[in-house]
């Protein structure tokens, strides 16, 4: 009961302090709001980039053509050889008969051509569809496959895909650095606010120390004050994120100008981002005030 009461009194004291020093609080709150909005943009953007990267990576396959007239036992052998290679996620075989049937279904021109073929004739090639575990090594894997016996040709959107992925990764890393820098700035701002609060309450702190208040009880309200500043500062960025993302999603029809660049669906996603903002704001606020308390409250 006693620790609980102390906790409760610290919280209410911190809350009062936020409003007692309203102009000071507002100054640091507006900085927190701006920072968290930028953090939100960074998170939203990099999550989407990440999502697109994953999707492209997931769709990416190595098409491996088998030499014409390869016997079935030989094909089984090739499949076994493929499966034991490193970096292989899955291997599926598409026989040339299946390709023929599929082409017949696709359109009438193909159908006509294929129907002109003699019974049993099939100049098409069978192939394997291979997905890889690590997209970065796809070139190397493709080269290894090409050297396998019985393999004719290997095909995987060379170059373009890798370039796209590496550009996306660069964007992601830039975002991470931006977020880290902003988080640092926010922590510094909150620390500064708490420092001023500590100075404005110096005599109160001195009196508390003289009458036997424990250090923890003296420090706790300041820690909570930082937490509140961070949490309160995240409200506007959260609302802004939810409204603008939903708006943008509707406006753009769920894609970034091109169907191969889909947006993450707003439902759930915006709430995850909101939670992240609240948590980042609170933790950064607490961390900032903890730093100030350590530095300026030498007790």
């Amino acid at each position, binding site marked *: 009961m006693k620790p609980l009461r102390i906790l409760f009194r610290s919280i209410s004291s911190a809350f009062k302090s936020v409003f007692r020093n309203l102009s000071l609080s507002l100054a640091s709150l507006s900085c927190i709001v701006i920072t968290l909005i930028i953090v939100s943009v960074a998170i939203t953007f990099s999550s989407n980039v990440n999502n697109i990267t994953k999707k492209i990576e997931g769709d990416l396959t190595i098409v491996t053509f088998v030499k014409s007239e390869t016997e079935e036992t030989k094909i089984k052998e090739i499949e076994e050889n493929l499966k034991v290679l490193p970096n292989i996620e899955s291997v599926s075989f598409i026989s040339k008969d299946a390709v023929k049937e599929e082409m017949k279904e696709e359109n009438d021109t193909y159908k006509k051509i294929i129907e002109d073929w003699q019974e049993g004739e099939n100049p098409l090639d069978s192939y394997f569809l291979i997905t890889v575990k690590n997209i970065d090594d796809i070139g190397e894997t493709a080269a290894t496959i090409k050297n396998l016996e019985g393999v004719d040709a290997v095909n995987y959107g060379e170059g373009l895909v890798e370039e796209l992925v590496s550009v996306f990764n660069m964007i992601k890393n830039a975002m991470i650095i931006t977020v880290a820098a902003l988080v640092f700035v926010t922590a510094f701002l909150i620390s500064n606010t708490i420092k001023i609060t500590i100075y404005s309450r110096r005599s109160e702190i001195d*009196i508390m120390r*003289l*009458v*036997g208040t*424990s250090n923890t009880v003296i420090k706790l309200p300041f820690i909570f004050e930082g937490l509140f500043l961070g949490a309160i500062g995240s409200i506007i960025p959260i609302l802004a994120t939810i409204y603008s993302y939903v708006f943008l999603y509707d406006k753009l029809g769920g894609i970034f100008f091109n169907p191969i660049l889909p947006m993450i669906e707003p439902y759930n996603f915006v709430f995850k981002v909101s939670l992240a903002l609240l948590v980042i704001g609170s933790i950064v606020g607490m961390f900032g005030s903890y730093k100030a308390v350590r530095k300026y409250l030498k007790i």
Partner: protein
Amino acid sequence: MSFIELKNVYKVYKNGVTAVADVNINIKKGDFVFIIGQTACGKSSLIKLLYREERPTKGQVIVGGINVAKLKNNRVYKLRRKIGIVFQDYKLLPKLTVYENVAFVLQSYGYKEADIKPRVIDALTRVGLKEKLRSFPNELSGGEQQRVCIARAIVNKPKVLVCDEPTGNLDATTSKEIMNVIDSINKELGTTIIMATHDQDIVNRMKKRVIALKDGMLIGDWEKGSYKLDEAA
């Protein structure tokens, strides 16, 4: 058994000033002790050593079984809960009412509100301020503010009350009233009183134990003494 014990205590400040030099004092529970001496003789320094506002440079300070010199910073509050402190400048919080100024001590200890109220009322009644619970410090006279300070000091029922010139800012009549309050705390609650002062009238009238300092050194320690500095020197 002494409640407070100082053994060969020295206090040398960073600037080289020796404020307390080789002082030995024993004070029993329930004693009433005046500490007298001219300005800058080390009265405040000696008192600050008791509640660990300053650490002794050398020697031993023991208060209620606590070895004050060895006390770690984050444990000082345990000592201060056993000591009530009365200041010359009252040190009240201007934005809190009289009641709140006393109650916040126990609140900060984590006491229940239901336990706090009767103890605060009791302390304020004892100093004769029951009628002014809702006043703010700037609405009170100096004497009344000092009463609030005393009420705050005794609200946790400390074993010892240390007072550094509690009447230093008050006129003779008001000083007398404040001394009556402190005397009654000593008599009725059995609280040990240690009071630094250079008010000769008070010391001579009350006939308590007197400890005299000069240049940081103890020059006299008399039971039922009076204010005399030259005779001892």
